[in-house]
């Protein structure tokens, strides 16, 4: 049973994209501590270039990034992988609601998970688990 559990957890792979190195460090370590396998990028363009279909169970995406914002990256990733779960994590106060509406319109009412920064690591893990289970 223990063996089975570990296998399941090991399969949970997460991609973190955030232009702040401190934040990719914090998120990666926090998630890895909780048994996830994590890849992290500070450059959204690089993240996209390396992205392969089916590599991840969930993507944690920042919104405000140089070169390409979270929404643009989301759009590009969706073209490659229409199954991967995507969570936005944003520090924006007002964009939060705007983003929700924007996604609703753009993606056929696909309900997008938005996580607001700042968030405690335990809470982040809880929300990501919930999202993966849904």
């Amino acid at each position: 049973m223990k063996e089975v559990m570990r296998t399941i957890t090991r399969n949970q792979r997460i991609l973190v994209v955030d232009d702040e190195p401190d934040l990719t460090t914090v998120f990666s370590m926090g998630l890895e501590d909780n048994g996830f396998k994590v890849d992290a990028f500070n450059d959204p363009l690089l993240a996209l270039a390396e992205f392969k279909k089916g590599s991840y169970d969930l993507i944690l995406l920042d919104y405000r990034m140089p070169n390409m914002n979270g929404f643009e990256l989301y759009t590009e990733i969706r073209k490659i992988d229409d199954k991967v779960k995507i969570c936005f994590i944003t520090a924006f106060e007002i964009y939060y609601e705007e983003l929700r509406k924007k996604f609703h319109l753009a993606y056929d009412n696909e309900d997008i998970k938005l996580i607001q920064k700042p968030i405690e690591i335990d809470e982040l893990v809880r929300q990501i688990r919930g999202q993966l289970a849904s």
Partner: protein
Amino acid sequence: MTFSPSERTEVLNGVENITNTILRFLSNAKNRISGCLDSIDPLVSIGVELSEKAAIDLKNRGVKVKHITEINKENIHHCKELMQVFDELRHLDGIKGNFLVSETEYLAIGFALHETKPVVQLVYSSIKTIVKQQQYIFDTLWNKAIPAEQKIREIEEGIKPEYFEVFTDRDRERVSQILFDLAKSVKKEALILLPSVKSLIRVDRLGLIDNVIMASQKGATVKIICPLSEENSNITRKIAEKAPGTSVLNGNNSPYGMYIVDSEKFLKADVKVPLAETFSEAIGFCIYSNSKISVESFRSIFDLLWNEHTLNEELKRADKMQTEFINIASHEMKTPTQAILGYSNLIQRHPEKRDEMLQAISRNATRLQRLTSDILDVTKIESKSLKLTLEKFNLNELMSDVVDDYRNEIEKSNSDVKLLHEPQKEIIQLEADKNRLGQVISNLLGNAIKFTKKGTIRVTGEIKDSKVLVSVKDTGQGIDPEIMSKLFSKFVTRSERGTGLGLFISKSIIEAHGGKIWGKNNDYNANSRGATFTFSLPLVRPGKAETGTGTATGDASKL
């Protein structure tokens, strides 16, 4: 059928004959004499004949004498004399003919030149119906005429005569012509209120827009209020491209269009067919006038609308800025907070990384602190309570200190940027707020590092024309032309990290010192582009030389 013996019509020739008839006419009149005079020479027609004696006689008998003529620059002197003789003189543009009517008789005088000798012929009539007809003609003209005093004042003071023309939809072509001429005549100012999206297209078709664009290019003020949409956007684009000084505000639909030129003339055109293709098809009742009072009142209506719209736009802009501020400030606050929170959560699980994490926490706390003080500075600037603490110091020392701080930072980050600064032995003695100036240099240097991936950043200080010039020149990506014009405004940034407050604060600090700050892109060369930011400070603070005291004055009072 015949007239009664007393009613007859005659044609008379010969000066004597004519003079006698006129004098008889004058003495026959009991209550009133009404006359029309050609402008050419009012005196010839009546002045000679109507001798002073006859005039006194008429006055004594209580006969009222009213005359209409065309008063112009040439005859103004004669007309003033006539005003003394007549009970009332009025002016009518282009009046023709010389005739006199009393209650019972009518006289028409004809002049001609025969081999330079004037010849005169007179038509006399006492036929009641003719007298009545002529009196009616006179009364009609009289009602259209204006008092001589008014016309004389207009001529003497160079005032253009007032007109107030009313047009119905039968005069549409004429109104189109008036509008076109109006647009062509713009010298100082054109105020245009357009009733609908379509109306902008119509007046453009008429040539109005091209004419006001030309006027604007020659320095005229052009303001347009018009409902704007995609449909007329090519015209607003044309205006913005060719006459960027022209202001176009998005207005509401209105039932009429209004065109006010040089505060002198206006045309108000009611809209009858809102969807018509041409101006002349669209308009109904129109007024065209140069009446001072009317122009002023239409102008004030326009100003009222203009101010309302401007205020509206400003409020919208302020609202957008507020939203922008909350967004950026919250992003900038929450990012380091997230890092601090995250590292604090992790630190117990990873004792081996304790030092590294504490350093990261400290770094993020500093970032948070910097943001807090930036926001505080902006609040102070906006409430005009930014105070300077003046002290005497050597600017070269301050520059070296700031540069050293950044040099360490660059070295740590292994960046490919070289920081060039030769410490100067020369002392640049300033009396200024040292911390604040350090903040400005640090801001300029920090920006240069942020936008320079590799190359050099050169910091220099010099004295030129009794001014201190400090420059930070980099070989980075340069200033985005899009933000060039609002470089020193709040929230303007091309960086994904940063609030866009730095240059705004720097500008306020430099200006509080009586200095100037500016930024420009370097001349392009094959190796690099980059930008240079410079500020200048007066060596002697303005106001200080006059007071001659060592204490800070005005905005520079001590904290």
